[in-house]
C-alpha cells in the first residue's frame, strides 16, 4: 500500500459522513473509539455515584442511609460496573482504538466490522448489568466476585449479572484478537517490532491476556448460570460441589484481568513521559520485556487471592513467591520512568501531571500489594479495608489517573481544540488531594482491623471513615471540574496538529482531527519512536497544515 486515494481538500473523520445513523454503522476506528468513550464515561459516572453513596453511608456507625441489603447491592453494582464496564475496556477500547492504528502507521484496525460488533456487545453487556436494577429481587448482592455457594443461593438477579459479565468478556476477547492481528499485520513498512511505540506494546501484552484468560471466566460464569437454572451442584458443597474450585477458576481469569486493567495504563505513561521531557524513554527494550513478563507471570499468581480459603501450605508459599516475582517487572517500569525524567527538559503540562500522579499512586498501590502478597501479613489484613485501599490505589490511582491523563493528552487530537489548561491543572490538584483523602485512611482502617463489605462499623473506626467520606466529596468536586472544563474545551481555541511536540506518528503525520484513514500516504519510518534528537526540525518538516 502506498498512496491512499484521497482528494486534496482536508476532510476530517467527523465530516466524512454525517448523521446519527452513520455513527451506529461506522467501521472507522476513531468513531468506534468515541462510541466507547461516551458509553464508558456514562457507566463510570454511574458507578462513581454509587461509590459516593457508599461513602455517605459509612460517614457514621450504624445505619445512615442504606439498609444492609441495599448496601450489598450497591457495592456489588459499583464493582461490576467499575471493573467490567470501565477499567477493563476503558483504556484499550477508547485510546487503544483511537491511537493504536495511528501509532503504527495504519489506516484502521485489522477487522473493522469486528471492532463495531465488540462495541455492540459492550453496550448489550452494559444494558444487561443495569437491567438487574429493574425486576425480580434487585441487583446481585454477592460482590463482583460472585463467590459460590452464595451466588447460587441468593434470590437476587445474579443470573443476569453473570450473563452481562459473560457478554462483556466476549467483547473484550474480540478487541484482543483484533489488536493482536493489527499489530502483526499492519505496522508501517520499516517499523520493526523493536521500533513499535510502547503503548502498542502494552496493548499487545494486554491483548494476549484478554484472549487467553477471559474464556476461563466465561465458562465459569456459565456454570453459575447452569447451576442456578438447572438446580445442579457444580460448586455447592451440599450437592457435592467444591466452592474452592470456583474461586480457582474465577481468579485464573480475574487476576490476569488486573493486568488487563493496568498494563495499558503503564503503556500510556511510557508514551506520555518522553513527550513532556523531550528525551528518549529510558530503557525502551526493558519496558517492552517487562510488559510481556507481567502478562506472563500474571497467569501464575491467582492463588494469592485465596490464602485464607483453604489451600495447602506449599501451594500458598509458591503463590506468594510468584506474586513477589511479578513485582519485579512492575518496579523496573517505575525506575525506568523516573530515569526518563532525569536530566530531561521537563515541561509541566496537564497530561504529565497525571502521568506523574500515576507513578506516585501506583507505587503506593504496588507496595501495599506486597503486604497482601506476603503470607504472614495477609492473614492480618485479608478482607479488611487495607485491601480496598490497596486496589483503589492501583486501579483508580493508577489506571484511573492514566485514563484522565490520556483524555487530556489526546483531547486536541480527538476534537482539534484545546481545553483551558490552567483549569485542568486545578482540577487535577483537587482530584489528587481528594483521592488520597479517600483512600489513604482506608489503608489505616485496614491495619486497625475494619473488615470490608459491611454497611456498619465499630465506633473506634469513625474518624478515618469521616475523613474518607469528606475526601470523596473533594474527589467529586475535582471530577465535576475536570468534566466541565473538558466539555467547555470542545469550544476552546483551535489546536495545531502537534501541540505537545511529540515525535510519534499519531501526532507528526496526522491532522487534528485526523482524516478518515489517518494518513495521506503510508508514513515512512525514519527514526525510533522516542528519538528526540533535532525533534523541532523533524516536527516542522512533517507538520500538517
Amino acid at each position, binding site marked *: 500500500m502506498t498512496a491512499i486515494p484521497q482528494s486534496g*481538500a482536508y476532510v476530517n473523520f467527523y465530516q466524512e459522513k454525517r448523521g446519527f445513523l452513520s455513527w451506529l454503522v461506522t467501521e472507522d476506528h476513531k468513531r468506534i473509539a468515541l462510541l466507547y468513550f461516551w458509553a464508558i464515561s456514562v457507566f463510570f459516572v454511574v458507578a462513581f455515584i454509587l461509590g459516593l453513596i457508599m461513602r455517605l453511608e459509612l460517614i457514621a456507625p450504624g445505619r445512615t442511609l442504606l439498609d444492609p441489603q441495599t448496601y450489598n447491592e450497591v457495592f456489588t453494582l459499583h464493582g461490576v460496573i467499575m471493573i467490567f464496564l470501565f477499567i477493563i475496556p476503558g483504556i484499550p477500547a477508547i485510546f487503544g482504538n483511537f491511537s493504536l492504528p495511528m501509532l503504527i502507521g495504519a489506516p484502521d484496525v485489522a477487522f473493522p466490522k469486528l471492532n463495531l460488533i465488540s462495541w455492540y456487545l459492550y453496550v448489550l453487556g452494559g444494558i444487561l448489568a443495569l437491567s438487574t436494577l429493574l425486576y425480580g429481587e434487585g441487583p446481585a448482592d454477592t460482590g463482583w466476585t460472585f463467590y459460590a455457594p452464595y451466588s447460587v443461593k441468593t434470590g437476587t438477579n445474579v443470573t443476569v449479572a453473570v450473563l452481562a459479565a459473560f457478554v462483556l468478556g466476549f467483547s473484550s476477547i474480540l478487541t484482543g484478537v483484533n489488536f*493482536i492481528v493489527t499489530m502483526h499485520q499492519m505496522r508501517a513498512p520499516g517499523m520493526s517490532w523493536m521500533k513499535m511505540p510502547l503503548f502498542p506494546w502494552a496493548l499487545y501484552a494486554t491483548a494476549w491476556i484478554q484472549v487467553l484468560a477471559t474464556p476461563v471466566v466465561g*465458562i465459569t460464569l456459565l456454570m453459575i448460570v447452569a447451576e442456578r437454572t438447572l438446580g445442579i451442584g457444580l460448586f455447592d458443597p451440599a450437592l*457435592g460441589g*467444591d466452592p474452592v474450585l470456583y474461586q480457582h477458576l474465577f481468579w485464573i481469569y480475574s487476576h490476569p484481568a488486573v493486568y488487563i486493567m493496568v498494563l495499558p495504563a503503564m503503556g500510556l505513561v511510557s508514551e506520555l513521559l518522553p513527550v513532556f521531557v523531550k528525551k528518549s524513554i529510558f530503557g525502551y527494550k526493558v519496558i517492552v520485556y517487562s510488559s510481556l513478563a507481567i502478562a506472563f507471570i500474571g497467569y501464575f499468581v491467582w492463588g494469592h487471592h485465596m490464602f485464607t480459603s483453604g489451600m495447602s501450605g506449599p501451594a500458598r508459599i509458591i503463590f506468594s513467591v510468584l506474586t513477589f516475582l511479578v513485582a519485579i517487572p512492575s518496579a523496573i517500569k517505575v525506575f525506568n520512568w523516573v530515569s526518563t525524567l532525569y536530566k530531561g527538559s521537563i515541561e509541566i503540562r496537564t497530561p504529565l501531571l497525571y502521568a506523574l500522579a500515576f507513578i506516585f499512586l501506583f507505587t503506593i498501590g504496588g507496595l501495599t500489594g506486597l503486604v497482601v502478597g506476603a503470607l504472614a501479613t495477609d492473614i492480618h489484613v485479608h478482607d479488611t479495608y487495607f485491601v480496598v485501599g490497596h486496589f483503589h490505589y492501583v486501579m483508580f490511582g493508577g489506571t484511573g489517573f492514566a485514563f484522565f491523563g490520556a483524555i487530556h493528552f489526546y483531547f486536541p487530537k480527538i476534537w482539534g481544540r484545546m481545553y483551558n489548561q490552567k483549569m485542568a491543572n486545578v482540577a487535577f490538584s483537587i482530584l489528587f488531594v481528594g483521592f488520597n483523602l479517600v483512600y489513604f485512611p482506608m489503608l489505616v482502617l485496614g491495619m486497625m482491623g475494619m473488615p470490608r463489605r459491611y454497611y456498619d462499623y465499630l465506633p473506634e473506626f469513625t474518624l478515618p471513615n469521616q475523613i474518607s467520606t469528606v475526601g470523596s466529596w473533594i474527589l467529586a468536586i475535582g471530577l465535576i471540574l475536570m468534566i466541565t472544563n473538558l466539555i467547555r474545551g470542545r469550544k476552546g481555541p483551535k489546536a495545531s496538529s502537534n501541540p505537545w511536540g511529540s515525535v510519534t506518528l499519531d501526532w507528526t503525520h496526522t491532522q487534528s482531527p485526523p482524516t478518515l484513514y489517518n494518513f495521506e500516504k503510508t508514513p515512512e519510518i525514519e527514526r525510533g519512536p522516542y528519538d528526540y534528537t533535532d525533534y523541532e526540525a523533524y516536527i516542522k518538516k512533517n507538520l500538517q497544515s
Partner: protein
Amino acid sequence: MSSHAVSHNDVIHFDPYGKKLGMWLFLFTEVLLFGGLFIVYATYRFMNHEAFHEGSAELDLVIGAINTVFLLTSSLTVALSITALQKGNAKLSVNLIMITILFAGAFMMNKYYEWTLKFEHGLFPGMEHYNQLSNGEAQFFNLYFLMTGLHAIHVIVGAIILLIVAYHIKKGNVTKDRYIYLENGGLYWHLVDVIWIYLFPLFYLII
C-alpha cells in the same frame, strides 16, 4: 467531495494471513472455554472416582462410537472441500461441504436419540432417577449434559458457518484465489471435531 467514493477495500488490503491468524486466536479462546470444563471434570473425577465409573456405565458406547466416526469423517470431507476449491473445482467443493453438513446433521440426530434415552431414564437434572443418584454420580451427569451440550451447540454453529461459506462459494465471493473464509470455516470445524475426540474417551471409554 471525491474522497467519499473511497471505499475500505482501496485502503485496507485483503489479508488472508491476518484473517487466519485471527481465526487461530479465536480457536485458542474456544479451547480455553472447554479447558475450564475439563479442569472441573478432572477435579470431580478425582474426588468421585467410583461414581464416575458407574455413571460412565450408563452411557451407550455404540452411539458414542458412531458419532466419533461421523465427526472424523466430516473433518476429512471439509479438508477435501478446501483442496477442491484450491484446485478450482467450486462445484465439488460445495458438494463436499454439503456432505460435511449431512454428517453434522447425522451427529445431531444421534445425539438427540441418545439424550432422549437419558430423559426416558430420568437422568436429566431434576428428574426422578437423577434425584436418587449419589452426589458424585449426579456430578457425572451434570458434566455430561453440560459438556456434550456445549459441544452440540458448537456443532450447530460450525454447520451454519459452513453453510454460509458454501453460499458464498456459489455466489463466487469465495474462490480459488480467495479461499480463506472456507479455510477458516474448516478450521472451526476441525476444532469441533478435536473437542469431541477428548469428550468421547472422557465420558464413554475411561473406566
